[in-house]
């Protein structure tokens, strides 16, 4: 009953934002809330089910975003002709070097193995670079103002949601293989590092996703506002609702995204609930609550952890692709760990770790507060500084940075929930 009230209040908040601010604004928040809820679900699978502390959410979300580019952007044949073969060859060479290292590690022993590995790593690095460098230079020289990258497959962007999940799962497999054997703190630092590296790659490898030049030519998943305004059926529809075509088209686009996102959210929620209630879910919670006992019962803890880490990261990747789809552009420069990693953590903790409904509520609530706090921060500051002279330097300074009050607010919310209600708003059953 309490939970129903929580969600009803959340709904009311959206109606309030719609009535008092604008419906378009309210729907924008709603869409990002839906995406945040999917991300929170992914983190909850890792943290709530298995107790894995992943601080690299930003990286997996960005991999999803990169998938949107690689699936949807139009292919650039000139770039492929210029350097496609070189890139493929360097990929093959890289695989060959890795294979050689694996072979050395398997066949040789002792000091010879160590020196052979080091020599192969160094030699392989320069060999691969020899092929890779010219290919990249050739690709990035192709019409750099417009393309300068290989482009994507030119497929509908909606496919990228699945591809984004696969990319993130692949990334998670690599990270998990290296770091999951370690205990919590090291895993946290390792994931933090890998997410920074993923962002660095996406910012700098221009041949792949144009780097910080951004890809802003993505095809939206739903009809654009302009297309709708010119479509006779939509003009009729708008007339029927007594609304002008331009604002109606904006709302319609956002509503379509909301419907798509809700379908994904519900599907993932349904699967997560199924998994949680299955023997697999019971096993995961047993591992989380007492790792040693579960191991003694014959459960392969490291393997199970890897599995959950991959599944959770894949869900985050899907959400990342959805986000890029809605923006219809990919901007690696905007990924920031506070917003893409730690804010998601606040959502999961506040909502209730281990409970999927809790994560969804947390995703909605925290995103809503995050957006509204940016608007209300200056108002609060106005109140605080109302005693000061209008032109006081301190006041202007405080007013300018008031939007950052929301970081303070998020920290306070996290600390209060952690202290007084560590199980969150909707606790695990």
């Amino acid at each position, binding site marked *: 009953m309490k939970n129903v009230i929580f969600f009803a209040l959340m709904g009311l908040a959206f109606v309030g934002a719609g009535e008092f601010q604008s419906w378009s604004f309210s729907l924008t928040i709603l869409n990002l809330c839906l995406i945040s809820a999917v991300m929170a679900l992914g983190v909850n699978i890792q943290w709530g089910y298995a107790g894995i502390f992943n601080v690299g959410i930003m990286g997996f979300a960005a991999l999803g975003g990169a998938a949107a580019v690689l699936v949807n952007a139009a292919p650039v044949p000139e770039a492929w002709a210029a350097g496609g073969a070189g890139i493929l060859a360097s990929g093959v060479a890289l695989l060959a070097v890795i294979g050689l290292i694996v072979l050395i590690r398997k066949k040789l022993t002792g000091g010879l193995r160590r020196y052979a590995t080091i020599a192969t790593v160094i030699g392989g690095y320069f060999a691969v670079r020899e092929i890779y460098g010219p290919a990249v230079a050739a690709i990035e020289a192709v019409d750099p103002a417009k393309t300068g990258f290989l482009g994507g497959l030119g497929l509908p962007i909606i496919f990228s949601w699945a591809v984004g999940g696969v990319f993130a799962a692949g990334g998670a497999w690599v990270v998990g293989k290296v770091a999951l054997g370690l205990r919590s703190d090291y895993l946290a630092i390792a994931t933090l*590092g890998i997410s920074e590296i993923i962002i660095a790659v996406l910012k700098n490898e221009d041949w792949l996703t144009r780097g910080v030049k951004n890809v802003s030519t993505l095809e939206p998943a739903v009809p654009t506002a302009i297309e709708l305004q010119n479509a006779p059926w939509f003009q009729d529809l708008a007339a029927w609702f007594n609304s002008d075509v331009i604002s109606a088209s904006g709302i319609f686009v956002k509503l379509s995204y909301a419907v798509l996102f809700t379908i994904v959210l519900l599907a993932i929620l349904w699967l997560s609930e199924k998994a949680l209630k299955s023997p697999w879910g019971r096993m995961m919670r047993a591992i989380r609550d007492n790792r040693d006992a579960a191991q003694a019962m014959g459960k392969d803890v490291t393997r199970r952890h890897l599995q959950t880490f991959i599944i959770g990261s894949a869900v985050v990747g899907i959400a990342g692709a959805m986000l890029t789809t809605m923006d219809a552009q990919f901007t690696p420069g905007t990924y920031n760990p*506070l917003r893409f990693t730690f804010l998601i953590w606040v959502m999961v903790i506040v909502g209730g770790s281990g409970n999927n409904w809790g994560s969804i509520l947390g995703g909605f609530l925290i995103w809503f507060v995050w957006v509204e706090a940016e608007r209300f921060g200056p108002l609060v500051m106005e109140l605080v500084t109302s005693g000061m002279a209008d032109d006081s330097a301190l006041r202007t300074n405080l007013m300018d*940075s008031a939007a950052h009050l929301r970081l303070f607010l998020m920290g306070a919310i996290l600390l209060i929930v952690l202290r007084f209600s560590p199980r969150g708003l909707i606790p695990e059953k």
Partner: protein
Amino acid sequence: MTDILNALALMANYVFVPGLAYGSQLALGALGVTLIYSILRFSNFAHGDTMAFGAMLTILATWWLQSMGISAGPLPTALLALPIGIVGTVLFVLATDRIVFRYYRKVKAASIVTMMASVGVMFVMNGLVRVIIGPGEQRFADGERFIIKAREFKEMTGLAEGISIRTTQAITVIVALIVVALLFWFLQKSRTGKAMRAYADNEDLALLSGINPDKVVLVAWIIAATLATIAGTLYGLDKSFKPFTYFQLLLPIFAAAIVGGIGNPLGAVAGGFIIAFSEMGFTYAYKRFIGYLGPDGWVPEGLMQLLSTDYKFAVSFVILVLVLLVRPTGIFRGKVL
């Protein structure tokens, strides 16, 4: 012969001197992280933002001193302002301990929960810093800019390559040396320092022998906050102050602490320099260096750079992963988490 000297001067100017300064900053940061880890037994995610907070207070104090017309002559005014920044940061950090961390110690919470709480503190401090001083870049170094300019060095030695040493770099290294020496003396010789080491080593035994845990924790926070403020101010003097960069320093600092062996102060210092010199060494373009060493008049094509500077995070990360795989306790045998 001159070619070799020129090559050495080149390396000293672009890798050794900046690496020494950066390594000192990382070492001071890693010492704070390692201290909190060994006494309070959690990884403090708020440490980067504590550095930012301390640096911010020092900058504000610097501006205040400058407005009063006080300066340190050839040295940056920030050195005079540093004590004010330290006191403010210590008070703030002690308040966070009182309000946040003390409770988790009392209920003996899992280290991961305390770590989560430190994320909350991180948000709060980050928000405060941005509200008070703004998210933009601040430069607050004043006084003499250089100890040796590259041109003077060239005239002095007659070499083609110069070494320039900025005042801030020299100050960083000297201050770090003094601070680290004091800290090691304190930990090894003083009564409280010995109590802290005993507490870090075996909490129950330390309690049984009558060591006051509240005092140990209090001193640990005071030292960590002091180190963070000094590290933050030195980094800001050497480069520039920007809240977000301090958050990003968290990764190399943690890497330094873990690589050296977390919980081991000597390891933290060594780790700081290992990370700093590897970052510099891997991202430096060796074109001219090899040009000097190779045959006359020959310069290699390309930059001869192992990694582009944008991947400097990758360097600390790869070293971290390698150490964790080969020697999980770190180089100086810290604790296994």
